[in-house]
């Protein structure tokens, strides 16, 4: 068991008359438990040079179905016009523009049904950072066996 803690704060002094200041912290647990998630992809940084969809997070087999996962994705571009389109299981989640990030808890589906893909808006090169904290992955064989 590992203990991973996600914290989010959101502030604004000019959103309305009451300044916005929220903060919340959550430990990442396995589904239906208070046992910490113990697997991770690690923090990855990739450079994309095509506008085609690429899988950044895959759910390879049935062992991950129904298991918890937490996903972080950030667009590290500094060009405000550049974005990535994030999809999960073929459904568009949204666009992350330069500097934007998302944090998304999810329940995994079996065999690639909840894979996460991204597609950059330009082919001139874009850095993207991502990480998944999860449970349930069992590697039982080689894909090229």
């Amino acid at each position, binding site marked *: 068991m590992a203990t*991973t*803690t*996600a*914290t989010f*704060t959101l502030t604004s002094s000019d*959103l309305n008359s009451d300044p916005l200041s929220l903060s919340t912290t959550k430990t990442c647990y396995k589904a239906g438990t208070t046992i910490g998630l113990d697997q991770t992809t690690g*923090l990855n940084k990739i450079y994309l040079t095509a506008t085609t969809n690429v899988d950044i997070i895959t759910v390879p087999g049935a062992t991950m179905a129904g298991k918890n996962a937490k996903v972080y994705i950030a667009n590290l571009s500094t060009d405000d016009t550049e974005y990535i389109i994030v999809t999960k299981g073929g459904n568009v989640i949204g666009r992350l523009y330069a500097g*934007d990030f998302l944090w998304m808890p999810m329940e995994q589906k079996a065999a690639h049904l909840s894979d996460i893909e991204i597609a950059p808006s330009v082919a001139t090169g874009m850095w993207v950072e991502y990480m998944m904290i999860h449970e349930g992955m069992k590697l039982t064989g080689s894909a090229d066996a």
Partner: protein
Amino acid sequence: MATLTPTFTLTSTDITSDELSFSKTDTLTANGSVEFKRLDLDGTNTKLILDASALAASYVWLYNTDGSQTITIGEDAAEAAEAMDSTHLTLAPYEFAWLPWDSTVDLYADTSSACKLEIGIFEKS
């Protein structure tokens, strides 16, 4: 026009041998309407939480205020069992999410028992 500053931090001393500790801060501009509210979910019917016909692309904050219920967010919770996964995310008790929403599809919330979902919607334009 308003400026939003979201900051996300992820830490762990034992998920890997290399201690995890990073933080990401963004500066966003919200030029449209703002909604910040708590919605009652009745545990029976899915509830429309993001209406693509009424809202432009937005940044969205979601928070499950309940200590025992799980809330699913998807394009239509009733279709969650179909082959393609139409569930966008799953909020465990007291769990939060921060994500962009393109306003191309409606999003619904579903739960198995009554609870409250907190949602902040910040239109980009």
